[in-house]
């Protein structure tokens, strides 16, 4: 008669299975954890108030007919602060003071002027020291805007600073919000 195997699992068998299961869990965790951060980051992308603010900048640029030196070889100009944007050679006379007033009201902290299609912009800002990390992530999350139905010549990408007051937990801290709109920026 065949003997019944009552020995159970050997220690080495249990260890191999445990390591295997642990490996799978680690793999799942490492793959899903960054997605949570990504989701939280995207809450600050193209929020309605940021889009309306960007629309005010768009109206300012179009009303004053401000043009920038954007070409296919130079598809983006990075302005690390609102001051550098308003003091650029594209602004003349009272436009500079009006621009600074507007930027202060809107709490703009960084602005990019670029081509409407941002395929080449993404390459240009990759590991570019002039562009902040947050701005780089935002631009990379955007579509390329290949279809330009209304033939808009240009795009502004803006970073806004907002102070949040979390009464319940973290107290006051700064949040950066991002938005983009197509604007006629060059001839």
């Amino acid at each position, binding site marked *: *008669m065949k*003997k*019944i195997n*009552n020995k159970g699992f050997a220690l080495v068998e249990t260890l191999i299975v445990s390591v295997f299961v642990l490996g799978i869990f680690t793999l799942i965790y490492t793959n899903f954890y960054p997605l949570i951060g990504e989701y939280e980051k995207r*809450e600050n992308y193209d929020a*309605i*108030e940021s889009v*309306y*603010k960007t*629309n*005010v900048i768009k*109206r*300012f640029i179009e*009303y*004053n007919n401000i043009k920038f030196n954007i070409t296919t070889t130079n598809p983006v100009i990075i302005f690390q602060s609102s001051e550098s944007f308003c003091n650029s050679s594209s602004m003349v006379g009272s436009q500079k003071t*009006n621009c600074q*007033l*507007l930027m202060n*009201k*809107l709490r703009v902290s960084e602005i990019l002027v670029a081509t409407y299609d941002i395929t080449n912009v993404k390459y240009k800002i990759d590991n570019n020291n002039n562009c902040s990390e947050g701005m780089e992530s935002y631009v990379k999350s955007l579509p390329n805007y290949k279809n330009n139905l209304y033939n808009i010549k240009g795009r502004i990408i803006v970073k806004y600073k*907002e102070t*949040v*007051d*979390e*009464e*319940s*937990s*973290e107290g006051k801290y700064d*949040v950066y919000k991002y938005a983009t709109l197509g604007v006629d920026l060059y001839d």
Partner: protein
Amino acid sequence: MIKKLNNKGLTAIEILICFSIVMVIVMSMFKVITNQKDKQTIESYKNEVITLKNTMMKQIESDIEAGNGLKNSSTLGATVCSEGVEEDKQIITAMMIFNQSITVPEVSYPIEGVNIKIYKDTDCNEGNCLNNYIEYSYLYKDNMYSRVYSLYTQKFELPKIPNLKFNFINCRIQDKYIELYAGLNHPDLGNKYSIIDLVEPIELGF
């Protein structure tokens, strides 16, 4: 020779150990599930707060933009961003008079004036801030049309979110810009998702 079968069963100590392990697992799972349920409720509040804020922002902004430039209402003797106290409520009033000389083809109704009143409860009764609302009205050919965005009632098809109230309202007209900066506060969310941040030039020219 046939091996003897083990018919002894489990000892009391083995059963006790098993039960205590199972109990610990169930208790820890219970806490995790309860926390998840709370998180789910907060998440639904978050979406509702964002929807409420977006609705108010869109309505106010689109009407201001439709006006295509605002007249400096102080020249017309209107109240501009005043602050006052009525009974137990703090009231902020922002009145904007649109420039009527500019025709706006995009909108079906010409807006002649917009009046925003924000009522902020100083005291909420058991989380119910009944007097916490934005009264938003516009004037068209001597008729006043109004919308009320209440933070508590469901009267206007807006979400009912307990304990939601305005914790700050700043409104001013300065340097040819109107600024409305109001924060809705919820104890679980703070005001991260609910800041109404509106900056608009009063006149068309910048």
